Structure formats: C-alpha cells, structure tokens
C-alpha cells in the first residue's frame, strides 16, 4: 500500500481521535464548542458514553468511554508506526482474537463484580486491542486494493 493511502488512513483516524478530545481543544479555540453537541451525538452511536466511564480531567470529558478511547488511540498509534515502517509479517488473525481476551476478561470480571470498574484497565486493554487490530485492518485494505486492481 503506498504511503499516500497510509497517510489518508492516519488522517482519518487522527481526526476521529481529535473529536474524542474536543472539549480540551475547545478550551484552546472556543469556536469548537459549536461542534460539541453534533460530535456527542456522533460518538453516542459507537459508545454508551456513561459519565463515570469517561476519561475526565479538569471538569472536561472525552466523548467516548475509557475502553473505546483506548481502542481508537491504539489504532492511531499503529497507523502512525505504519506511516514510517511497514510491518514485515502479519500474524494469523487468531492473534487479534488473543489480543481481545484481556478486554473481554475485563468486561466479564467487572460485570460479575470480581473487581470494580477501572478506567486504567479498560483503557489499557482497549489500547492493546486497537494497536494490534490496526494491522488486520491494514491487511484487509491491502487485499481489497489488490482485488479492485485485478
């Protein structure tokens, strides 16, 4: 996949992540507040946005929960890496499913009260899944482009 396409993917993911932290950016440029209700609605489609599960700082919140924020930042991290260096080998997709196990385990454990909800655990398990998941998205896109070419 050429660098241009990798760059476009990076930009799309970066813009999506920018939206998650819009409340902080709105502190820098107040005009961004206009987009807030619209973005809240957008992110509500893909996240429950429970207030106690959002990442908060200085009275401001992310627009997605800690887990989803971790997933998206993981995607952003890997898309940045791929901009500079292509992965030599992508492992079979079972590695993605293995990467999902900590997140699933966390969901099960806190749902059944083994331990209380932790934003740090939710964020880090999401980050792991997102950063590994990007490589499978990347492989899928390469295959798609190949199929479209032939």
């Amino acid at each position, binding site marked *: 996949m050429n660098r241009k396409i990798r760059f476009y993917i990076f930009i799309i993911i970066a813009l999506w992540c920018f939206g998650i932290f819009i*409340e902080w950016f709105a502190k820098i440029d107040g005009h961004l507040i206009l987009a807030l209700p*619209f973005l*809240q609605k*957008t992110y509500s*489609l*893909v996240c429950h946005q429970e207030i106690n599960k959002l990442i908060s700082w200085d009275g401001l919140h992310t627009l997605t929960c800690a887990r989803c924020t971790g997933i998206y930042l993981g995607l952003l991290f890997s898309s940045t890496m791929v901009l500079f260096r292509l992965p030599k080998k992508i492992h079979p*997709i079972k590695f993605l*499913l293995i990467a999902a196990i900590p997140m699933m385990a966390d969901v099960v454990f806190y749902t059944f009260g083994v331990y209380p909800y932790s934003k740090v655990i939710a964020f880090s398990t999401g980050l792991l899944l997102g950063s590994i998941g990007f490589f499978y998205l990347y492989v*899928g*896109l390469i295959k798609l482009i190949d199929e479209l070419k032939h």
Partner: protein
Amino acid sequence: MKKYFAPLICGFGAGVLQIVPLVKSFSCCMILPLAALISLLLDQRATKNFDKIPMKKAVLFGLFTGLFAALFGSVFEILITLLTKHNDIISTFPDLQKMVQNFPLSEEIKTEVLKLFISVRDDILKNGFSLLYTFSVFFNNLIVNSIFGSVGGIFGAQIINSKLNNRSSGR
C-alpha cells in the same frame, strides 16, 4: 434485494441496539463490526456457499449493514423523538448551557450558539421535530455506520476465511 437480506436483518438489529432507550446503554463500538460479521455468516448459510469471502464482497456487505443500521436507527430515533417530544439534546441541554458559559468565547458567540440550540430544543419540545436535528441524525448515522460496517466486513472476512484456511490445512 434478496442478495442483501442478511445485511438488512443485521442492520436492523444494530440500528435498534444503537437507538432504543435502555438497550442503547449496551451500545459500544463493537456492535456494527459484529453485525457485519454476522451478516457474512448468515449469507454463507443462506447461500450454502462456504468458499473464501472476497474482500470486495465483505466490504460491500459491511457497508450495506451499516447503511441499513443508519436507515433504521435514524427512522426509529426520529419516531421516538416525535412521539415522546424528548431526546438526548433536551436532557443534555442544561449541561451544554453551563459548558458554553464557561468557555473563553465572546458573549456574542455564546448567545449565537445558545440561540441555535434553544431553537432546536424548542422545536422538539413543541412539535417533536426539528429539521436541523433530523438532518444531523441522518448525516451522522450514514457516515459513522457505513464506515464501522465496512471495517467490520474487513475483519469479519478475515476471521471467516482463517477458519477455512485452518480446515483446508488440517486435511
């Protein structure tokens, strides 16, 4: 149309999960990708074709799942708003008002922003319908759901195809 029956069913399910109050609280970023994966599996069963899924087909199925989810989700959301004359915009309005007041903006801009949201809120409270709200719901749902659906199709095809690979290498 029969070809896209599986995305229709899964899109309907995802649309409901995204919109209906209470059920909505279980919503997460995995719903649409999972719906796309299930639609690929359903299609395999319906057509009895268990060959490798081409990525083009997977993306198309994911895209249609997302589009159907957006269509059903938007219609349900607008209907619920019309019937109840209440939605997220109204319940979060006081918080938004407080937030706008705390931001470093000129009073003129603050008034303009609030005026816009007050007009949407008033329309919904009075008629259960706001053109701006309806447009934003359709626009949002179409863009976000089609992207997440397509991504789900990409992952889904790889998961299904890997099972086939394992079976064929096991023989």
